[in-house]
């Protein structure tokens, strides 16, 4: 199915926030992602719809999986890809962010993928350079492609997400993944539950259109999917929670707790996991329940779809 069949042109210049997307946008992205997902499983993965375009991945925060996922997605679409990451000297030379942006823009890239520790960084790059920008995570604000791949994975396993009960467990306060997911899940009318230690939940989380829980057992009851968030080590040293041991005992997900969920409930994690802390190894590796690797696979396909749509090279323009 091509973009033309929707009588709708993807209207976004970039992908800065999941909250800017509407349901038709999601259908466009997911239809395309489904085709990419199928092709990615064949021996000829090349689909050169971005031929001739240059994508710059600009990662000010260390990342392995997201950077690799974007790089593979762009390369499979035939784009030329350049990576700048946290270790790169050029990002550490004290140049202002505006100068970095303008310098890169002068090299005429077609798409920027930006990860930065400050909320608003991706929006800043797009505004400064005028180049289509994908937000690959800006501080605790948004990580829209993660939410897209999560929603895509949910759809593949649960069908329509509307009315499904989905719990997000962990450090909601510092999580861009949670914020982006709440945006998309509420768009789909899911029954969203947020759960974590009170010191890791925003005070006004109940106004996000989600119900708030402090007990994992209560939060999981009747769930169709549980998203477990990564617990950053620095939350302990900064006095927000006591210890990894206590977190595991009170908020960690295991088979016993998951038995309170609905039959067939799936478990997701954006990675990288702290095994034995937010999730037990046994559960993370239980392929009947855990769809964590499906998420990673979907990530490439979803990012391919987003890159294509932003480049204005959705499927109907494809060379046969």
């Amino acid at each position: 199915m091509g973009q033309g069949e929707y009588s709708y042109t993807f209207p976004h210049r970039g992908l800065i926030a999941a909250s800017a997307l509407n349901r038709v946008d999601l259908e466009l992205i997911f239809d395309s992602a489904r085709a990419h997902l199928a092709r990615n499983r064949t021996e000829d993965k090349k689909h050169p719809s971005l031929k001739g375009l240059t994508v710059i991945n600009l990662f000010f925060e260390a990342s392995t999986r997201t950077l690799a996922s974007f790089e593979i997605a762009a390369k499979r679409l035939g784009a030329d890809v350049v990576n700048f990451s946290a270790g790169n000297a050029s990002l550490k030379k004290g140049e202002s962010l505006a100068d970095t942006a303008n310098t890169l823009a002068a090299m005429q890239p077609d798409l920027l993928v930006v990860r930065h520790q400050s909320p608003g960084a991706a929006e800043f790059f797009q505004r400064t350079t005028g180049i289509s920008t994908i937000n690959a995570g800006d501080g605790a604000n948004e990580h829209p492609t993660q939410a897209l791949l999560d929603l895509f994975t949910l759809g593949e396993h649960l069908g329509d997400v509307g009315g499904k009960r989905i719990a997000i467990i962990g450090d909601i306060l510092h999580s861009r993944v949670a914020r982006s997911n709440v945006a998309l899940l509420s768009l789909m009318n899911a029954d969203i539950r947020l759960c974590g230690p009170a010191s890791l939940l925003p005070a006004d989380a109940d106004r996000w259109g989600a119900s708030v829980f402090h007990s994992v057992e209560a939060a999981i009851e009747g769930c169709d999917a549980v998203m477990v968030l990564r617990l950053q080590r620095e939350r302990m040293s900064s006095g927000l929670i006591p210890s990894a041991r206590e977190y595991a005992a009170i908020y960690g997900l295991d088979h016993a707790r998951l038995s309170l969920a609905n039959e067939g409930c799936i478990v997701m994690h954006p990675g990288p996991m702290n095994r034995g802390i937010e999730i037990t190894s046994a559960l993370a590796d239980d392929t009947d329940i855990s769809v964590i690797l499906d998420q990673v696979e979907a990530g490439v396909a979803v990012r391919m779809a987003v890159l294509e749509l932003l480049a204005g090279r959705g499927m109907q323009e494809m060379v046969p």
Partner: protein
Amino acid sequence: MSGGIFIAGARLIDPASGRDIEGDLRVENGVIDAIGPGLSPDAEDQIIEADGAVLSPALIDIGARAAEPGRSGIESLDTTIRAAAAGGVGTLVLSSSSGAGLTRPEDIDWISFRALHAPVRLLGAARTHTEAGEMAEIGLMLRAGAALVSDGGDLIADTRFLRNLLSYASAFDAWVGLTAEDIHLSAGTIAHESAMAVRLGLSARPGISQRLGVERLAGLAELTGARILFERLTTADGLDALKAARKRGLDVAASAPLTHLLFNEVDMGGLDPAYRLDPPLRSEADRQALLAAIADGLIDVIVSDHTPVALEAKANPFSDAAPGSSSLEALIPVLCTLDADGQLPLAAGLKALTSNPAEMLGLPQGRLDEGAPADLVLFDPQAPNVYGKDGLESPAPSAFSGRRLQGRVLLSIVDGAMVYARPGFAE
């Protein structure tokens, strides 16, 4: 099964209902089987003639320090427990600053283990923070059976840390006992700021320091929704702030230490290290305000604040002596003395040591009701008592030593078993 215990002819005081009647009470299988005038004992009952002595629920002390765990002190935990039983305490909640501190889940497990063979009900408070200043594993400690969370008198200076702590603790619906003082005004002081302290040359903190402490914590209670217990309030200024916090509808509670109900700063005027206490003894106006606050319910609980200090640590000039007093065995005599002097009605004092703490911690004991746990104390409110003259279970120095008080515990019953009887009584 042998018979029960039949206590005949007692003055039955139930602080929860306000009932104060002459009558009998029968105990069987660990619970109160019957209460009222004109009961008759079963054939096999052990009969105790109360002879008009007061029978009330056994006391619940939610703030007593032990010298254990982890340190060898003047008093073993067994001794502290014996002192509690002799003092009419049926439920003893050890302060989180007991010994080296109740900071780890293992420490609470240790208390549960010791409780198995203790004659009184033994619980512990979980320490809020570790020695390194990190948040302690309060969730695991509460799951292990900690009765509440408390800073154990170690004031937390970092307000952001305190906010996180209270926010975290709020999910467990536990009381968080905190010291209400201004960190800088109170640091290093050993007396209450007054003309007297100035004359004695003691470094002193003003009563306002406690008010600032209460206001700071009340603000955080409002922000986080945590239930804060202001521990050991002792000043009229602090009580003013407590009243304001209550008026704003905050879920807060407050405790007062036993010593400060009877003594004021004049008692430490001779610089006797026995009166070196933390918080320091306050002015007479403060003491009066404290008694009024207990009578009208502004203060919820009285704590013994029992602190076994080694003799050598007290054998120092006032300023250098370790603060603290052995107080478990003074609870009943102080209540009786204040009642006899018309300073605090007995029922109000008992309420702050029975039904109020029971209600706070959700305990079934603390009331005289049919079916309630048979945790009882029988005491003679008129008996003269020169404190310590006839010997005490606790060997630790006490601010009450040699004081002419009145009131003596005759019998303590916990879970239906007699755990203390005054020598010569009920034999």
